[in-house]
């Protein structure tokens, strides 16, 4: 009945099939084979990434104690905890961008509210190929529309994000969605199917034929036939999700629910086996009791469907009707489909006939684990050997600044963010242009800051350093608004791990991330791995994105990046935590744009000094020292200053003293280098500057005066030499128009 071709088509190799035979001691049914296939896919089972993820110490501890939940919980105060997680929807978005992105948002939201937390904010990290290609414009427009459609309707504000454009993402966009929730610490829900005999209740949307084998699809490279995978992409309904949020939180508050898990990847297969495995129980369900969209669905299809907006809920025996009534009030399906057993098996019946019977832990814990070979790719040595010193200086630094502001990766993302409801729930604290989004928490004096960050180019040049920079930059971003970095969620977007060079990138990157998160004492509490981001044109850059959670002890003590509207005369100071003799030109946007090179070594990282810098920022903002604060990142110091000016319509007179920058190799490095560990702050008084200098000196951080705020132009000079002069209005116009002018072309709505 089962032939080798079928096994292969389901993405299982011979050894894995043998393991199935050994486990069952018989040939599997087609339904069982499908269940193994999805649960043992990298997407669900982490069969390749698991050994490397053990480098994250707390992940390892959680894995060993069996305490891994859908999303990690970080205590905020005595009453509330923050739950947050990031997850990718790259492959679905590559073939069906609107639904792919929309269901990415829906999926991550369910991870949050299944823990009993109310989702309070969404973030996203997006990567596309260059906008001069119609297909990339199509993907970009429809991914943004999908996020907007889902997030706005479901009533969770989209508060922050980042977008980069690079040819390596052509045909393989990255869509990472992060969600943040607040939970009462004494009401955290569990995903365990405990209590033998307890009813298993299916709730939410009915099951259709969409998304079958979605997890398997996510675990192969994209290719010419990927278009045929469109039926593997799920369809989202944010209205149903909104009802599901309210109904689930109401059901959890009732005290009747002992365990709950959302049905994401691998649908019913995953939710039944994981909840049973977690509680060391078993579960029996009958697929004919599942609400169906089409009556002719087979058990195989029902078990593998990835229809959205569904949950599996385990209630206390005798309370099933009360739980069902809550979901019915919200006009949702709710049906008892089975019960918890004590035999450790997931038993699937179809109208009373057993069609699958598998030990729950065989599907989950016993997923094969691979220790893959690594090999440093040949390109690494080549790109790192690039001679930065040989580059000519540009003729006009001012033109370079304008072209950087016109670069879609750096330019204003207003075209995107205006399409997102960023304010619903009235907890988004207004802080124009702040480096991280700030949220107040109703009922608490504290606030949180959240940011999602990652730079694929650094990861390409040196995955280890790229991983470190992703963490230090995210930490610096939350510190720039006054928040203490406390925990991390990560989305690891990589190429095919079965290729030794691809796995080397992954391993080195995780080593970098682990070292940086340890330095900041910010545990990785949740995350997601997305492999096989690779098309016939090649792999993507190694792109870990880091979701950083920061805590503000007093939400009223915060800082934005904009100059004060009436900030004329405010003193500008550049904080430098450590020197980078390379000037940070390696892997910079300047090098790419001006010289057409993605080469060099990424900026160096000094973790110890980065930690001191964040501590200094949090302390200064807590004391109210700063009028504005913005970290130096893509595009370097000149872009940083231009952004602060644009945000406030105030200009600045910047006078860089050559004596402060003797280690910086060139004017281009000074203006556009992306050396890490640097922040520009504005101060109202001389006294504040004195105070800052004292505090910075203790931390071994340089605080150099670089100019004053005021006027309607941004002028940057080094000693007597004026390098750039622009009206702020012109800088703003270039930055604002960069994306709209590329998108205002006719073929937008056509599928390229």
């Amino acid at each position, binding site marked *: 009945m089962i032939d080798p071709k079928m096994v292969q088509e389901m993405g299982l190799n011979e050894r894995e099939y043998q393991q199935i035979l050994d486990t069952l001691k018989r040939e599997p049914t087609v339904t069982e084979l499908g269940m193994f296939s999805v649960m043992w896919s990298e997407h669900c089972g982490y069969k390749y990434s698991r050994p490397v993820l053990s480098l994250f110490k707390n992940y390892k501890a959680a894995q060993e104690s069996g305490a891994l939940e859908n999303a990690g919980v970080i205590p905020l105060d005595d009453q509330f905890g923050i739950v947050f997680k990031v997850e990718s929807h790259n492959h679905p978005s590559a073939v069906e961008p609107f639904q792919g992105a929309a269901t990415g948002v829906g999926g991550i939201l369910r991870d949050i509210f299944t823990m009993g937390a109310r989702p309070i904010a969404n973030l996203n990290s997006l990567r596309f190929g260059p906008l001069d290609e119609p297909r990339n414009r199509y993907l970009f427009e429809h991914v943004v*529309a999908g996020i907007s459609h889902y997030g706005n309707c479901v009533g969770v504000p989209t508060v922050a994000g980042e977008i980069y454009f690079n040819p390596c993402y052509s045909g393989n966009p990255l869509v990472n969605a992060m969600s943040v929730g607040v939970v009462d610490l004494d009401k955290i829900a569990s995903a365990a199917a405990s209590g033998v005999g307890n009813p298993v209740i299916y709730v939410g949307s009915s099951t259709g034929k969409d998304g079958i084998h979605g997890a398997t699809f996510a675990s192969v490279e994209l290719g010419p036939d990927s278009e045929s995978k469109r039926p593997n992409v799920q369809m989202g309904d944010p209205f149903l999700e909104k009802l599901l949020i309210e109904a689930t939180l109401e059901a959890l508050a009732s005290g009747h629910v002992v365990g709950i898990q959302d049905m994401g990847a691998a649908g019913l297969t995953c939710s039944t086996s994981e909840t049973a495995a977690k509680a060391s129980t078993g579960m029996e369900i009958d697929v004919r009791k599942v609400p169906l969209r089409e009556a002719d669905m087979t058990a195989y299809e029902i078990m593998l469907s990835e229809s959205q907006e569904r949950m599996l809920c385990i209630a206390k025996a005798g309370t099933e009707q009360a739980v069902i009534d809550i979901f019915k009030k919200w006009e949702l399906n709710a049906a008892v489909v089975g019960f918890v057993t004590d035999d450790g098996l997931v038993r699937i019946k179809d109208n009373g006939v057993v069609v699958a019977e598998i030990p729950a832990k065989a599907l989950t814990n016993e997923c094969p684990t691979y220790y893959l070979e690594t090999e440093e790719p040949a390109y690494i040595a080549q790109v790192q050997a690039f001679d930065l010193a040989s580059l000519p200086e540009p003729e006009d630094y001012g033109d370079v600044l304008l072209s950087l502001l016109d670069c879609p990766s750096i330019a204003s993302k207003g075209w995107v963010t205006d399409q997102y409801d960023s304010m*619903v729930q*009235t907890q988004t604290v207004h802080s124009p242009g702040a480096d991280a989004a700030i949220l107040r928490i109703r009922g608490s004096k504290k606030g949180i800051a959240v940011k999602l960050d990652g730079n694929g180019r650094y990861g390409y040049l040196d995955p280890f350093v790229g991983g470190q920079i992703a963490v230090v930059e995210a930490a610096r971003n939350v510190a720039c608004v006054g928040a203490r970095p406390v925990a991390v969620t990560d989305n690891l977007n990589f190429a095919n791990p079965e290729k030794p060079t691809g796995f080397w990138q992954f391993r080195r990157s995780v080593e970098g991330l682990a070292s940086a998160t340890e330095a900041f004492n910010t545990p990785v509490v949740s995350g997601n791995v997305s492999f096989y981001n690779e098309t016939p044109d090649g792999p993507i850059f190694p792109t870990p994105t880091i979701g950083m959670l920061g805590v503000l002890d007093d939400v009223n003590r915060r800082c934005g990046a904009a100059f004060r509207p009436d900030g004329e005369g405010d003193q500008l100071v550049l904080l430098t935590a450590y020197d980078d003799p390379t000037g940070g030109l390696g892997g910079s946007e300047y090098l790419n744009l001006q010289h057409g090179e993605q080469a060099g070594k990424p900026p160096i990282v000094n973790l110890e000094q980065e930690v001191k810098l964040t501590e200094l920022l949090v302390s200064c903002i807590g004391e109210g020292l700063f009028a504005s604060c913005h970290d130096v990142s893509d595009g370097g110091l000149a872009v940083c200053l231009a952004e602060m000016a644009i945000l406030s319509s105030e200009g600045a007179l910047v006078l860089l003293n050559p004596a402060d920058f003797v280690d910086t190799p060139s004017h281009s490095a000074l203006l556009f280098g992306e050396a890490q560990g640097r922040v520009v702050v504005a101060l109202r008084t001389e006294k504040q500057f004195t105070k800052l200098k004292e505090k910075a000196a203790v931390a071994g951080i340089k605080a150099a005066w670089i100019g004053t705020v005021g006027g309607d132009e941004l002028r940057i000079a080094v000693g007597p030499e004026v390098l750039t002069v622009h009206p702020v209005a012109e800088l703003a116009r270039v930055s604002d128009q960069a994306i709209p002018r590329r998108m205002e072309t006719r073929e937008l709505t056509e599928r390229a």
Partner: protein
Amino acid sequence: MSSVAPAINTGARPRFAVLRFPGSNCDQDAYFTVKDVLGCPVDYVWHQETSLAGFDVVLVPGGFSYGDYLRTGAVARFAPIMDAAIAHAENGGLVIGICNGFQILCEAGLLPGALVRNRDCKFLCKYVGLRVENNTTPFTTEYSAGQIIQIPIAHGEGCYVCDEATEAELQASGRILFRYVDGDGNPTLEGNPNGSQSNIAGIANAKFNVMGMMPHPERASEKILGTADGRAIFESIVKHAMKTLA
């Protein structure tokens, strides 16, 4: 936030009903604004309820009622609670609809005209400038005439349209309460975010006890959210209601 002092501390406080439809998502924002910022009693009222007895003010909040899959507000207007809301308005009670609430009030016939897709066919969330066109209504007395305020919008279908006769009637009777304006305070094309006819952002019924607006004053009632420019709408309502209650 509970740390914010109530706007008005004396007298009998009007009781607010915040209607809840499946898919409402600004219901909690409205609820907490009334409770914590205004210090007024407030309750959610489920769409299947049939009575609004005991409430002085009915607030129809924003969101995507019933998913707005048919036409915004088109299904919500048939909810059992809407009969009670219409009766409340007919008896002279105050009704305010914000965003999706405005759309529902138009569909229910409590306000004239309709809201259609934004000019650029995209959802838009941003601060807009508004000019107070009439400060003598129960919803606007706490503004000065012609005052320019900043309040955010967040909608995909907020382009107000009505026939010419209706607009002439609205204009002549002072029922246009807010218009979108540009940075100079003028109702120009540049200042019009969604293509609304004559930059109309908010209107009242003929008796001036029902008001609908696309911008979100509940998102603009506390400084920490960016601006408190919208708070005067709620304060006007409270003041008016207290006069009638006294």
